[in-house]
């Protein structure tokens, strides 16, 4: 009897500790930031959001993250296809390299791009001769975003390609479809859910990226200042309200994307 009571006491203690940890660590901070941003009322919130530099930073972030996502949809789908369908020397190595951007600190990623594209490097020099600069301009930000979000599309498409029933493809060939037609009508539709959910995750990660971008962007307000760097600047200059207003905007956007992806994946599993 006493051991049973003890057991119950223990499990009750464990449960409350874990739940408390979860709530204090994850839920409190998120409620806190929403509360803080509206603490001075809607008007102040709206003022901070419509601040031209803040607004420009958010729009620029969305634009560049979109470009990076579209690039990743193409190269990610291609890489996933090649890594699953073709056998060639070095395939396993490439397959394990896919996760490198997740394992590498983002500040190191930023430094890599800085070194490769700087004006003294060969790529930077070539671009300079052609009349445009990459580093400290928008292309550098896109490259940084492409790098850090590279694995998402590949890792979302690969399992779908592995599961794919080859009989559909063979049926298409048997019925006389060309290679291109088979790809567009049979293969692409079955990869599409993976491409889309991977792209959305990549987009939300691109919106949030800081470490890789801050080193290569130059951070010129209105030109190459993206939202997360803007928030960092506001924190540094002690304007907490301005920082929270933009944060809330960015957070809400990211949460919506995340929940959409989860919802779509859940429906696919159940359906």
């Amino acid at each position, binding site marked *: 009897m006493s051991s049973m009571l003890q*057991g119950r006491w223990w499990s009750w203690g*464990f*449960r409350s500790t*874990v*739940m408390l940890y979860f709530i204090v*660590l*994850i839920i409190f*901070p*998120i409620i*806190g*930031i929403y509360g*803080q941003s509206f603490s001075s009322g809607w008007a102040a919130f709206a003022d901070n959001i419509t601040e031209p530099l803040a607004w420009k930073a958010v729009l620029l972030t969305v634009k560049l993250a979109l470009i990076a996502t579209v690039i990743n949809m193409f*190269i990610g789908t*291609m*890489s996933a296809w*090649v*890594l699953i369908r*073709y056998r060639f020397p070095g395939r396993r190595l*490439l397959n*394990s*390299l896919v996760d*490198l*951007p*997740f*394992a*590498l*600190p*983002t*500040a*190191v990623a*930023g*430094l*890599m*791009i800085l*070194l*490769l594209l700087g004006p003294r490097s060969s790529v930077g020099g070539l671009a300079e001769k052609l009349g445009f600069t990459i580093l400290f301009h928008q292309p550098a930000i896109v490259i940084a975003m492409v790098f850090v979000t*590279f694995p998402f599309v590949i890792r979302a498409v690969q399992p779908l390609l592995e599961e794919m029933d080859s009989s559909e493809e063979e049926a298409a060939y048997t019925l006389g479809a060309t*290679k291109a037609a088979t790809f567009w009508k049979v293969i692409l539709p079955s990869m599409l859910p993976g491409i889309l959910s991977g792209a959305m995750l990549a987009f*939300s*990660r691109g919106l*949030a*990226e*800081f*470490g890789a971008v*801050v*080193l290569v962007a130059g951070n010129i307000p209105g030109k190459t200042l993206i*939202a*997360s*760097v803007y*928030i*960092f600047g506001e*924190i540094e200059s002690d304007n*907490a309200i301005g*920082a929270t207003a933009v*944060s809330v905007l*960015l*957070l809400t956007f*990211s949460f919506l994307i*995340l*929940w959409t992806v989860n919802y779509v994946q859940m429906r696919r599993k159940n359906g």
Partner: protein
Amino acid sequence: MRRLWIGLTVAVFSVLLIIPVIRIAMGAFDEGWGGFARGLARPETLHALYMTGLIVVIVTIVNTLFGVMLSLYLVRATWLGNKVKQLLNSIVDLPFAVSPVIGGLMIVLLLGPETALGALFNKAGINIVYALPGMIIATLFVTFPLVVREVMPVLQEIGSAQEEAAATLGASAWTTFWRVTWPSIRWCVVYGVVLTVARAMGEFGAVLVVSGNILFKTQTATTLVYQDVENFNLTAANSIALVLAAGSVTLLLLMEWAKSRREVH
């Protein structure tokens, strides 16, 4: 056609992943072994690496324990309603969607010196923001979903039949966990742990905001890389970056290993 696609993929991987890593290694040895060693042997580098190591160890232990327990509760617990479980389940992922800078800002807003909680801790003689505790909290926040997301699907997949059988045969909850549940989830836990270590080691934005990046106090390896770049001390930045990159590649190999073990079991 086939050749073209393989060639293009290899080209993308080389340009995006392989050449940059090689470039970092070359940059670190720009001034030969001496430059590399000088960059690493600076006292601030050693201190920063020590801080990073300390944070990685603490964060990994805490989040592995809580992550495994939370996954067990979210999948198995009968004392949580299904609606509550679903809600908690969708909240677990939130740190993935939060920009690291915003994660840091949240902690400054809640626990900073000007807030009620922060002042309370301050009176007790504990500084949270601009000190180690805040940096640990920030990293805990950022890495929280990693273990949970690896373990939960497996728990769902293996079902509870074996565990119930063990319990019926008189095994205690503890024995059931170690003899029945643990063997089937351990490689996923290892995988989650490796991801957590990688993320904790590389965390930059959240730590930068929370730590204030104070030399010899709250500077970590990644924030030192940032500061060295800002100070145009590129060789030193490269040396630290190379050490971090070597760590990442090691973790990547560990990930591959854990993955292959996971597929076997």
